[in-house]
Protein backbone atom coordinates (compact mmCIF):
# COMPACT_ATOMS: atom_id res chain seq x y z
CA UNK A 1 0.00 0.00 0.00
CA UNK A 2 2.97 2.32 0.55
CA UNK A 3 4.05 2.12 -3.07
CA UNK A 4 0.71 3.32 -4.46
CA UNK A 5 0.14 7.00 -5.29
CA UNK A 6 -1.35 9.04 -2.42
CA UNK A 7 -4.73 9.57 -4.04
CA UNK A 8 -5.24 5.81 -4.37
CA UNK A 9 -4.00 5.34 -0.81
CA UNK A 10 -6.54 7.83 0.43
CA UNK A 11 -9.41 6.01 -1.24
CA UNK A 12 -8.28 2.61 -0.08
CA UNK A 13 -7.89 3.79 3.48
CA UNK A 14 -11.25 5.49 3.36
CA UNK A 15 -11.31 7.80 6.34
CA UNK A 16 -14.59 9.27 7.40
CA UNK A 17 -15.34 11.72 10.15
CA UNK A 18 -16.12 10.51 13.69
CA UNK A 19 -19.75 11.64 13.70
CA UNK A 20 -20.43 9.55 10.58
CA UNK A 21 -18.71 6.62 12.22
CA UNK A 22 -21.13 6.68 15.17
CA UNK A 23 -24.09 7.12 12.87
CA UNK A 24 -22.99 4.22 10.67
CA UNK A 25 -22.57 1.96 13.67
CA UNK A 26 -26.10 2.58 14.92
CA UNK A 27 -27.61 2.57 11.46
CA UNK A 28 -26.09 -0.75 10.42
CA UNK A 29 -27.32 -2.47 13.59
CA UNK A 30 -30.92 -1.29 13.21
CA UNK A 31 -30.89 -1.90 9.46
CA UNK A 32 -29.76 -5.49 9.92
CA UNK A 33 -32.33 -6.17 12.65
CA UNK A 34 -35.15 -4.85 10.47
CA UNK A 35 -33.77 -6.78 7.48
CA UNK A 36 -33.77 -10.02 9.47
CA UNK A 37 -37.38 -9.50 10.57
CA UNK A 38 -38.55 -8.61 7.06
CA UNK A 39 -36.82 -11.55 5.42
CA UNK A 40 -38.13 -14.01 8.02
CA UNK A 41 -41.71 -12.79 7.68
CA UNK A 42 -41.57 -12.82 3.89
CA UNK A 43 -40.04 -16.30 3.78
CA UNK A 44 -42.68 -17.64 6.20
CA UNK A 45 -45.65 -16.26 4.33
CA UNK A 46 -44.34 -17.24 0.91
CA UNK A 47 -43.37 -20.66 2.24
CA UNK A 48 -39.92 -20.57 0.69
CA UNK A 49 -36.64 -20.57 2.59
CA UNK A 50 -34.62 -19.39 -0.42
CA UNK A 51 -36.66 -16.20 -0.76
CA UNK A 52 -35.79 -15.10 2.77
CA UNK A 53 -32.11 -15.71 2.20
CA UNK A 54 -32.15 -13.85 -1.11
CA UNK A 55 -33.87 -10.87 0.48
CA UNK A 56 -31.30 -10.81 3.24
CA UNK A 57 -28.47 -10.92 0.73
CA UNK A 58 -30.00 -8.09 -1.30
CA UNK A 59 -30.39 -5.90 1.75
CA UNK A 60 -26.85 -6.67 2.83
CA UNK A 61 -25.46 -5.65 -0.57
CA UNK A 62 -27.36 -2.34 -0.34
CA UNK A 63 -25.95 -1.69 3.13
CA UNK A 64 -22.42 -2.50 2.01
CA UNK A 65 -22.69 -0.18 -0.99
CA UNK A 66 -23.97 2.64 1.18
CA UNK A 67 -21.58 2.27 4.10
CA UNK A 68 -18.22 0.82 3.09
CA UNK A 69 -16.78 3.10 0.36
CA UNK A 70 -15.76 6.55 1.68
CA UNK A 71 -18.50 8.60 0.10
CA UNK A 72 -18.44 12.41 0.37
CA UNK A 73 -21.65 12.49 2.41
CA UNK A 74 -19.83 10.55 5.12
CA UNK A 75 -17.09 13.17 5.27
CA UNK A 76 -19.04 16.34 5.91
CA UNK A 77 -17.45 17.20 9.26
CA UNK A 78 -13.81 16.33 8.81
CA UNK A 79 -11.56 16.21 11.79
CA UNK A 80 -9.61 19.41 12.27
CA UNK A 81 -5.94 18.89 12.89
CA UNK A 82 -3.87 21.61 14.52
CA UNK A 83 -1.15 23.14 12.31
CA UNK A 84 2.31 21.67 12.46
CA UNK A 85 4.39 23.20 15.27
CA UNK A 86 8.10 23.20 15.55
CA UNK A 87 9.53 22.07 18.89
CA UNK A 88 11.74 24.81 20.38
CA UNK A 89 15.39 24.09 19.96
CA UNK A 90 17.32 23.21 23.10
Amino acid at each position, binding site marked *: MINLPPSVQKVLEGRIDPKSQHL*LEQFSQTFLIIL*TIISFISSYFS*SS*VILGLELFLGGLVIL*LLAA*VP*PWPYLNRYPRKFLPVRKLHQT
Partner: protein
Amino acid sequence: MYSTLQRLNHISSLATTYVMILLGLISIASFLSLPSVDVGKVEIKDLIVQKGRLRRWGARQEELASLKFDIRTDLNPLLNSYNTKQLFIYLTASYEEQSTGHTHDVVLWDRIIQRAEIRDIRAEAKNKYQWRNPSGTFKNVEYANMTLHYSLMPYVGILSSGVAATAQGPVTIPELIKR
Protein backbone atom coordinates in the same frame (compact mmCIF):
# COMPACT_ATOMS: atom_id res chain seq x y z
CA MET B 1 -15.32 2.19 11.44
CA TYR B 2 -12.37 4.33 10.70
CA SER B 3 -11.22 2.73 7.44
CA THR B 4 -12.78 0.88 4.52
CA LEU B 5 -11.53 -2.52 5.55
CA GLN B 6 -12.66 -2.00 9.10
CA ARG B 7 -16.17 -1.10 7.98
CA LEU B 8 -16.29 -4.14 5.71
CA ASN B 9 -15.11 -6.36 8.56
CA HIS B 10 -17.58 -4.96 11.09
CA ILE B 11 -20.62 -5.06 8.82
CA SER B 12 -19.91 -8.55 7.55
CA SER B 13 -19.49 -9.92 11.07
CA LEU B 14 -22.80 -8.34 12.09
CA ALA B 15 -24.40 -9.79 8.98
CA THR B 16 -23.21 -13.33 9.65
CA THR B 17 -24.61 -13.13 13.19
CA TYR B 18 -27.97 -12.02 11.86
CA VAL B 19 -27.99 -14.73 9.19
CA MET B 20 -27.59 -17.33 11.92
CA ILE B 21 -30.48 -15.76 13.82
CA LEU B 22 -32.59 -15.82 10.66
CA LEU B 23 -31.84 -19.50 10.03
CA GLY B 24 -32.65 -20.30 13.65
CA LEU B 25 -36.02 -18.54 13.34
CA ILE B 26 -36.78 -20.44 10.12
CA SER B 27 -35.97 -23.80 11.69
CA ILE B 28 -38.10 -23.11 14.79
CA ALA B 29 -41.02 -21.84 12.72
CA SER B 30 -40.98 -24.84 10.41
CA PHE B 31 -40.72 -27.29 13.28
CA LEU B 32 -43.72 -25.77 15.02
CA SER B 33 -45.85 -25.72 11.88
CA LEU B 34 -45.45 -29.22 10.46
CA PRO B 35 -48.56 -30.38 8.59
CA SER B 36 -50.30 -33.54 9.71
CA VAL B 37 -50.36 -36.52 7.39
CA ASP B 38 -53.40 -38.59 6.42
CA VAL B 39 -52.37 -42.11 7.11
CA GLY B 40 -52.60 -44.07 3.85
CA LYS B 41 -52.74 -47.76 3.02
CA VAL B 42 -50.21 -50.44 2.31
CA GLU B 43 -51.40 -53.51 0.43
CA ILE B 44 -49.34 -56.63 0.72
CA LYS B 45 -49.46 -59.09 -2.13
CA ASP B 46 -47.48 -62.26 -2.79
CA LEU B 47 -45.95 -62.87 0.59
CA ILE B 48 -44.06 -66.18 0.39
CA VAL B 49 -41.58 -67.94 2.60
CA GLN B 50 -38.99 -70.12 0.97
CA LYS B 51 -35.56 -71.47 1.66
CA GLY B 52 -32.68 -69.34 0.50
CA ARG B 53 -29.38 -67.86 1.42
CA LEU B 54 -28.35 -64.34 2.31
CA ARG B 55 -26.08 -62.68 -0.19
CA ARG B 56 -22.97 -62.81 1.87
CA TRP B 57 -20.02 -65.09 2.36
CA GLY B 58 -20.64 -68.07 4.63
CA ALA B 59 -24.42 -67.67 4.78
CA ARG B 60 -26.44 -70.76 5.68
CA GLN B 61 -29.60 -72.05 4.10
CA GLU B 62 -32.50 -70.58 6.01
CA GLU B 63 -36.05 -69.39 5.51
CA LEU B 64 -36.42 -66.05 3.78
CA ALA B 65 -39.67 -64.17 3.30
CA SER B 66 -40.24 -62.02 0.26
CA LEU B 67 -43.19 -59.88 -0.66
CA LYS B 68 -44.58 -57.40 -3.14
CA PHE B 69 -46.57 -54.45 -1.95
CA ASP B 70 -48.50 -51.45 -3.13
CA ILE B 71 -48.49 -48.10 -1.32
CA ARG B 72 -51.19 -45.50 -1.67
CA THR B 73 -50.61 -42.32 0.25
CA ASP B 74 -50.55 -38.60 -0.37
CA LEU B 75 -47.31 -37.12 0.87
CA ASN B 76 -47.70 -33.79 -0.94
CA PRO B 77 -48.56 -31.65 2.11
CA LEU B 78 -45.33 -32.86 3.68
CA LEU B 79 -43.23 -32.39 0.57
CA ASN B 80 -44.64 -28.95 -0.16
CA SER B 81 -44.18 -27.82 3.39
CA TYR B 82 -42.13 -24.79 4.31
CA ASN B 83 -38.69 -26.16 4.99
CA THR B 84 -38.64 -29.61 3.42
CA LYS B 85 -35.64 -30.71 1.44
CA GLN B 86 -36.42 -34.39 1.07
CA LEU B 87 -38.39 -37.24 2.62
CA PHE B 88 -36.99 -40.60 3.53
CA ILE B 89 -39.71 -43.27 3.58
CA TYR B 90 -39.18 -46.83 4.73
CA LEU B 91 -41.40 -49.85 5.16
CA THR B 92 -41.03 -51.88 8.34
CA ALA B 93 -42.47 -55.17 9.44
CA SER B 94 -42.79 -55.69 13.15
CA TYR B 95 -43.63 -59.09 14.57
CA GLU B 96 -43.36 -61.21 17.68
CA GLU B 97 -41.79 -64.60 17.77
CA GLN B 98 -43.84 -67.00 19.86
CA SER B 99 -41.07 -69.32 21.02
CA THR B 100 -38.72 -66.72 22.44
CA GLY B 101 -41.16 -63.86 22.96
CA HIS B 102 -38.87 -61.33 21.28
CA THR B 103 -40.29 -58.53 19.15
CA HIS B 104 -38.55 -57.93 15.86
CA ASP B 105 -38.59 -54.85 13.66
CA VAL B 106 -37.17 -55.18 10.17
CA VAL B 107 -36.85 -52.62 7.38
CA LEU B 108 -37.85 -54.10 4.06
CA TRP B 109 -37.69 -51.20 1.61
CA ASP B 110 -36.74 -47.54 1.64
CA ARG B 111 -36.64 -44.63 -0.73
CA ILE B 112 -35.60 -40.98 -0.80
CA ILE B 113 -38.04 -38.49 -2.32
CA GLN B 114 -36.71 -35.03 -3.16
CA ARG B 115 -38.82 -31.92 -3.01
CA ALA B 116 -38.74 -31.46 -6.76
CA GLU B 117 -40.39 -34.82 -7.39
CA ILE B 118 -43.80 -33.85 -6.18
CA ARG B 119 -46.46 -36.35 -7.09
CA ASP B 120 -48.76 -38.93 -5.54
CA ILE B 121 -46.61 -41.63 -4.12
CA ARG B 122 -47.84 -44.86 -5.59
CA ALA B 123 -45.12 -47.39 -5.50
CA GLU B 124 -45.49 -50.99 -6.48
CA ALA B 125 -42.32 -52.61 -5.38
CA LYS B 126 -40.83 -55.66 -3.83
CA ASN B 127 -38.66 -55.76 -0.77
CA LYS B 128 -35.18 -54.34 -1.27
CA TYR B 129 -33.68 -56.09 1.70
CA GLN B 130 -33.99 -59.77 2.48
CA TRP B 131 -36.24 -60.65 5.37
CA ARG B 132 -34.84 -63.28 7.63
CA ASN B 133 -35.56 -64.29 11.18
CA PRO B 134 -32.60 -64.56 13.56
CA SER B 135 -33.59 -68.05 14.57
CA GLY B 136 -33.51 -69.15 10.93
CA THR B 137 -37.12 -70.15 10.54
CA PHE B 138 -40.51 -68.50 10.34
CA LYS B 139 -42.56 -71.29 11.87
CA ASN B 140 -42.96 -69.55 15.23
CA VAL B 141 -44.13 -66.29 13.66
CA GLU B 142 -47.86 -65.97 13.07
CA TYR B 143 -48.40 -62.48 11.78
CA ALA B 144 -46.59 -59.16 11.22
CA ASN B 145 -47.65 -55.52 11.18
CA MET B 146 -46.48 -53.45 8.22
CA THR B 147 -46.06 -49.70 8.58
CA LEU B 148 -44.59 -47.07 6.28
CA HIS B 149 -42.62 -44.47 8.21
CA TYR B 150 -41.30 -41.19 6.91
CA SER B 151 -38.45 -39.01 8.05
CA LEU B 152 -38.56 -35.37 7.02
CA MET B 153 -35.24 -33.67 6.31
CA PRO B 154 -35.43 -29.88 6.30
CA TYR B 155 -33.12 -27.37 4.64
CA VAL B 156 -32.26 -26.02 8.09
CA GLY B 157 -33.59 -27.40 11.33
CA ILE B 158 -34.48 -30.52 13.24
CA LEU B 159 -35.28 -33.94 11.76
CA SER B 160 -38.82 -35.09 12.35
CA SER B 161 -40.52 -38.38 11.63
CA GLY B 162 -43.89 -40.08 11.67
CA VAL B 163 -46.09 -42.75 10.15
CA ALA B 164 -47.34 -42.34 6.60
CA ALA B 165 -49.31 -45.52 5.93
CA THR B 166 -50.19 -48.81 7.57
CA ALA B 167 -51.45 -52.14 6.37
CA GLN B 168 -55.05 -52.73 7.21
CA GLY B 169 -54.40 -55.37 9.79
CA PRO B 170 -51.79 -57.89 10.73
CA VAL B 171 -50.49 -59.91 7.82
CA THR B 172 -50.27 -63.65 8.34
CA ILE B 173 -47.02 -65.27 7.43
CA PRO B 174 -47.66 -68.34 5.29
CA GLU B 175 -46.08 -71.77 5.54
CA LEU B 176 -42.78 -72.61 4.00
CA ILE B 177 -43.02 -73.48 0.32
CA LYS B 178 -41.43 -76.84 -0.12
CA ARG B 179 -39.74 -77.38 -3.41
